[in-house]
């Protein structure tokens, strides 16, 4: 295969191995540089996305704090769930969770807002890798389906109805995609379960500690304080 013009050293095993190793190292170096260059910006974009999604599930009108400051972490079955509390006059008006669930082709990350009576204010998908054109109808930009959860609660809809219609529940699946909506409904039900299990802690009136925390944005103290209360 090798043409006559190619110098002998290029046919040695060492050159081949070195070439491959060199390219692999170069690729690794480039990827590290790329990661370093984009890591902060990607984090920032994701935080902006989060704030935008929080605003979609918790209306601005019902709270007077910065949602990212009202952060606390609940522990559920060994999994940490981050909760963002919307406070009005130091009382919890609503909470928002981010949840992850296993979809058809990878994790689906959701955010849901629940008001203090346990009624869903809104649900949004933060990220997913579902099939384009099928499972991606869970995005609000592509389909109105996700808004079907608005205003629902365990009081209005009994627990066993929180399933897709195919499983005997109250929620539509999409034609051709059952697994994705099933996963989303399950995650939302778990979110409501989590809310009810931790209701007292979430709705507890905030005293001076949180007022101070809201200004310093140091959320770790709130996290540490609330975590042992559950589980």
């Amino acid at each position, binding site marked *: 295969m090798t043409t006559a013009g190619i110098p002998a050293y290029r046919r040695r095993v060492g050159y081949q191995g070195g070439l491959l190793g060199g*390219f692999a190292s170069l690729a690794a170096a480039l*990827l590290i540089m790329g990661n370093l*260059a*984009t890591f902060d910006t990607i984090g920032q*974009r994701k935080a902006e996305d989060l704030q935008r999604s929080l605003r979609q599930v918790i209306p601005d009108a019902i709270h007077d704090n910065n949602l990212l400051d009202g952060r606390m972490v609940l522990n559920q079955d060994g999994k940490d769930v981050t909760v963002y509390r919307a406070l009005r006059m130091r009382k919890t008006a609503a909470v928002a969770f981010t949840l992850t669930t296993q979809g058809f082709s990878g994790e689906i990350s959701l955010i849901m807002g629940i008001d203090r009576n346990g009624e869903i204010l809104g649900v949004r998908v933060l990220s997913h890798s579902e099939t*384009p*054109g099928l499972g991606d109808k869970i995005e609000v930009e592509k389909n109105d389906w996700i808004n079907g959860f608005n205003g629902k609660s365990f009081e209005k809809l009994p627990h066993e109805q929180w399933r897709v219609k195919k499983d005997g529940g109250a929620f539509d699946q999409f*034609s051709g995609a059952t697994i994705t909506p099933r996963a989303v409904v399950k995650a939302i039900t778990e979110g409501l379960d989590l809310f009810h299990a931790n209701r007292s802690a979430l709705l507890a009136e905030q005293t001076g500690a949180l007022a101070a925390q809201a200004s310093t944005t140091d959320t770790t103290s709130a996290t540490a304080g609330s975590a042992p209360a559950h589980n």
Partner: protein
Amino acid sequence: MKLEFEHDYRKIATDGLWSSNVIFSQMLALCPLLAVTGTATNGLGMGMATTVVLAACGLLVSLLRGLITQEVRIPVFVLIIATVVTLVDMSMNAWLHDLHKILGLFVPLIVTNCAILGRAESFAFRNPVLPSVFDGLMMGVGFTLSLMTLGAFREIIGSGTLFANASLLLGSAFSFLELTLIPHYRGFLLMVLPPGGFLALGFLLAAKRLIDARVKLGQARAALAGDAGPGNDGAVAGGSVAT
């Protein structure tokens, strides 16, 4: 083949767009094809992202071809492609975040696109930089057009719309592209699912072969009329349609 350094850009263009079209002639890249062509918009998005990677890989491979040996070329190409795709993915996520939210699904799929490896191997490895980049671009545009055609075909039959959600991909200026061709359409799920992709691909392939056969037949007829009398016209026609 003798005049390898004199690159016929017109030939590269027709190869990419029609006669060696990634999908309809080389039959490559069928995996991302079936996954994303449920709608014309998704096809367009995947095509655009792939075009960028094809051109970039053409550039890199043709630049480095003096260094790369025949024996280890394939792993090196794979490394180059994977690195380019990952870098494109990361920088889009950071600086073109809104576009990434839509195209982000497709970008990692590009690594599975064997057409890129195919072009690196069969063109960029053997040709200088400029023709390689041009070849990458033309192959990419051909790929994009095929994906869009297939996507449109499946979308119209499957859901009765055309270019749904195009404004998410291209900006609100392009919302005029979003058409509902069949109002109150119940949908034909098979076309949206991967088997529908195979069916649509089959129909479009048949159509392309038919066009090619017609063109060949026309040329044969013209040649025949030029140097011989009519008479064995029918034999030629039968022969070329069969191929």
